[in-house]
């Protein structure tokens, strides 16, 4: 071993590159420790610290915007160049989505933590999960990927079960935990198979070595590829790994449900993109059709279940959003499946769609959180006449729902759908595009039914007690509505990712 090589055994860490997830994790620890010293009356301080930390992490994305940094690379003597952490454009967009989503969740949680949830634990868990979710898109080896996946998921189980003394919350957490752990175990098995077949954990290396796997290991490699996908499909809540969703969303505190629907989903599809497109491109003929079928099943099952929600059932609003998020996951999978069939870069369509979905879904959850304050049972029926009571909130919710449906005035929702359709057509997946078209119509029915209800005359004009609107929730609604409006006027902001090569 030459002296030069022994020097380079010590990796130099580019701290700025890893700053966004690191800062989030550090703030999480700070909040946990500070919880011990902050007097009961000033626990809100912790919440604002968390919000500030997430905002700072978002700001730290700005110096990285060139998208050409990476760190934790293999040292020179190993003859291969592969890095474990890469901050390319893909990473940055997903980190923007994840951290932004966590920030909005934090805004929604500020009032909940004051009233119902234990502040210190809540903020620690939320920030840890966000740190894991922000690390995930940057990971470029399977070990980091699985670690990030677990860092993102484990705190989420606790978050779901955080409603003290609520039986449903505990049950939801257990359901979520058991099914998630099973999926992770399967993923780990898959990862070990892939490692055994290729002898490396770095995604780009796997991509090269999978091409010439020795004949007797072929089956092992294929099984490994399939099993690895299962864990991420679970996180995305793709059918048939979706059964935990409605109960978990209903049982969890509302902001946590919002968090799971956006950030949890982002974790899933980011992992799927990394393993499929980056690590296993040579097995496209295996995962391409599988993902296409999965996408079709997911959107259909989600939409049909959402359609069957009775508007008078308790928590039907959250249940509807839960099923609709399953359906939306189906749309997110379409471009990933298309990537298997087409040489063009299709992943951008998923990213653009996810950005739109994150904004409007968090917006919808924010309005739901607002209404939940005066109607704790949160039935869809409770939204009747919302326009008469608070016009701004009703208009915002109508805008968000029509975006999810993909109809004007929700222009960004429409164009995000157009991008996804376009990737399917481009890849020659005509049948999938037709199934998606039918699903769009089914989805319109329940979104529009809810929207129409907002503008009905309220039943029984009894003078309701006016609830004070908390500032953080208003801020969250205003932020998401403004983002949705800007994107509708200038969709290029989100859709530019659909054409640029992100990796």
């Amino acid at each position, binding site marked *: 071993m030459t002296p030069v090589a022994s020097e380079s055994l010590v990796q130099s860490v580019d701290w700025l590159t890893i700053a966004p997830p690191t800062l989030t994790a550090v703030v999480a620890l700070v909040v946990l420790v500070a919880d011990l010293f902050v007097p009961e009356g000033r626990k809100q301080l912790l919440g604002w610290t968390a919000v500030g930390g997430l905002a700072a992490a978002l700001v730290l994305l700005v110096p990285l915007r060139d998208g050409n940094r990476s760190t934790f690379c293999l040292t020179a003597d190993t003859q291969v160049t592969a890095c474990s952490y890469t901050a390319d454009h893909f990473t940055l967009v997903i980190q923007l989505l994840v951290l932004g989503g966590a920030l909005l969740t934090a805004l929604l949680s500020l009032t909940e933590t004051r009233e119902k949830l234990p502040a210190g634990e809540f903020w620690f868990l939320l920030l840890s999960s966000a740190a894991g979710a922000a690390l995930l898109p940057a990971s470029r080896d399977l070990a980091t990927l699985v670690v990030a996946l677990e860092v993102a998921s484990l705190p989420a189980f606790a978050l779901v079960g955080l409603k003290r003394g609520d039986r449903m919350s505990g049950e939801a957490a257990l359901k979520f935990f058991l099914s998630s752990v099973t999926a992770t175990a399967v993923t780990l098995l898959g990862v070990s198979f892939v490692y055994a077949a290729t002898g490396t954990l770095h995604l780009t290396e796997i991509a090269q070595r999978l091409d010439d796997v020795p004949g007797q290991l072929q089956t092992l490699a294929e099984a490994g590829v399939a099993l690895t996908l299962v864990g991420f499909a679970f996180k995305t809540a793709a059918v048939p790994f979706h059964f935990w969703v409605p109960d978990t969303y209903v049982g969890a505190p509302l902001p946590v449900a919002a968090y799971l629907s956006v950030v949890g989903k982002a974790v899933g599809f980011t992992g799927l993109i990394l393993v499929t497109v980056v690590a296993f491109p040579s097995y496209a003929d295996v995962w391409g059709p599988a993902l296409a079928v999965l996408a079709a099943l997911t959107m259909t099952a989600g939409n049909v279940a959402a359609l069957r929600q009775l508007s008078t059932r308790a928590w039907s609003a959250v249940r509807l959003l839960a099923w609709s998020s399953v359906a939306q996951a189906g749309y997110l999978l379409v471009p990933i499946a298309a990537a298997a069939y087409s040489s063009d870069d299709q992943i951008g369509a998923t990213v653009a769609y996810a950005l739109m979905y994150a904004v409007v879904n968090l917006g919808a959850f924010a309005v739901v959180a607002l209404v939940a304050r005066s109607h704790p049972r949160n039935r869809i029926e409770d939204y009747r006449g919302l326009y008469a009571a608070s016009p701004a909130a009703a208009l915002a919710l109508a805008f968000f729902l029509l975006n999810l449906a993909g109809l004007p005035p929700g222009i960004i929702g429409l164009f995000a759908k157009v991008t996804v359709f376009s990737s399917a057509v481009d890849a020659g997946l005509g049948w999938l595009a037709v199934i998606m078209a039918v699903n769009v119509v089914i989805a319109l029915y329940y979104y529009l039914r809810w929207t*129409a209800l907002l503008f009905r005359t309220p039943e029984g004009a009894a003078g309701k007690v006016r609830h004070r609107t908390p500032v953080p929730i208003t801020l969250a609604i205003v932020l998401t509505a403004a983002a949705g409006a800007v994107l509708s006027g200038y969709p290029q902001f989100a859709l530019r990712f659909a054409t640029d090569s992100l990796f």
Partner: protein
Amino acid sequence: MIDISESVMQFLLALIVVGPLLGAAAALLPAPPGLRGKSPDQAVLRHGVTVTGVILLAAIVLALGFDHDQPSRMQATTDISWIHALDVRIHLGVDGISLPLLVLTALLTFLCALYSYFKMPAGPSPKGFVALLLVLESGTLATFAVLDLVLFFLAFEMVLIPMYFLIARWGGEGRQAAAWKFILYTLLGSVVMLLGLLLIGVKAGTFDMVALATDNGRGLTTSVQVIAVLAIGIGLAVKTPMWPLHSWLPDAHTAAPTVGSVLLAGVLLKMGTYGFVRILLPITPDGMRVFAPYLAAFAVAGIIYGSLACLALARPGNKGDLKRLIAYSSVGHMGFVLLGIATMTPTGVNGALFANVAHGLVTGLLFFLVGAIKDRYGTADLDTLAGATGAALYGRAPRLGALLAFAAVASLGLPGLAGFWGEMLALFGAFEPAEGLSRPAFLTFTAIGAFGTLLTAAYLLLVVRRVCMGGPRPVGETPIADVQGYEFAAWTPLVALTVLAGLWPAVLLGLTDPAVQQLLAGGTR
């Protein structure tokens, strides 16, 4: 006719598309001081009249400034990049095909706003009504003005939500179900259409309609064209509506408020046929040639089906609703338009475009009149209206009766009125279809279509006899009001234009013919 600089023309066209949207946003805000009027409701209705009036004025000035010597050239064009990622451009322009439809839309919307100012349909506050009306106007005008496929789809979708709410909130009996049927049907059609549009865009590498039309399908293989025509055709056929995809229309018309019906028949249906002419004929001619005979067959089936349905509704004892009857007559009339398009000849397509405009004028007028009758009698049920001998409108409200008879004979295609030329030209085109289309088949269609005109005359005359004529009325019956001042104001322009278009068809054909020639030839100037 008058010389207006290109930049002013550009501004006018942009104003026509964007103006109503701004107006809709303004309608939701509280009225500024000085414009409050007598009450908030009156102020917002007046706002609607003002905005649609300004748009109509802009459309008329645009029509005057339009270079009538070159109607085949796209004029007042704006072309700015909007969404680079999807290669979507804000590309606006008018030629001889879109100009009449733009003016018709602006006119009908203005008349509807004027009519509602005096006769607001029963329902919630007029604020939402005016805002939705204006969004609807913007969507339809945009459909006729845009020259980008994705933008066309966006405009096509824009009218869905306003129309849904207009029917569901201000409609009559059965409005919820009718509104759902309308929106789900049309949306299913238009998503399928989107797939076809994307297929064209992906395969040809551009969404620009002018570039694609100039290309005339040379950049697309026949199989791509066939799939694209099938997908886009279904979307447009639902909107038009083509038999057998029409079943949403009668319900929607019956339930919609008067102005909703007028706009639905007068303007929204034209979006479908316009799409056929603007997109399918020039961009995918090979695919269109494959489907033209089937389209023509469905079209004549629609003509016969619509007429027979109307005849059944008009018969005594069948409890026929007048609005539903006119809705079915629209299916028949749009059948003629589709037949004209399916011939793929300049004659046929010109006839289709003429029939389009004529149908907008005449059926718009008919729905206004039936709405007025329904307001007076409280029902549009033909049997209740007619009683034993007939409603005797000639005796009770002579002017209303005369107008109804006028509209009915215009609708059945009396020579000298607007309805005649379009249907005649469509049949004439079908007599000698484009090269490559089976002449015997089209001769059969011509014969069936001609028979359809007879059936049309039969049911319309039956309606006139049962509504306008009748025995002496019993003594002591409550008198009904004849045509009011505001009704005259709203209807006179339609009557005048029906006569004008009937007596001087060149004013329309002179605009459309050169543009159609160019579209069919594929951009050879």
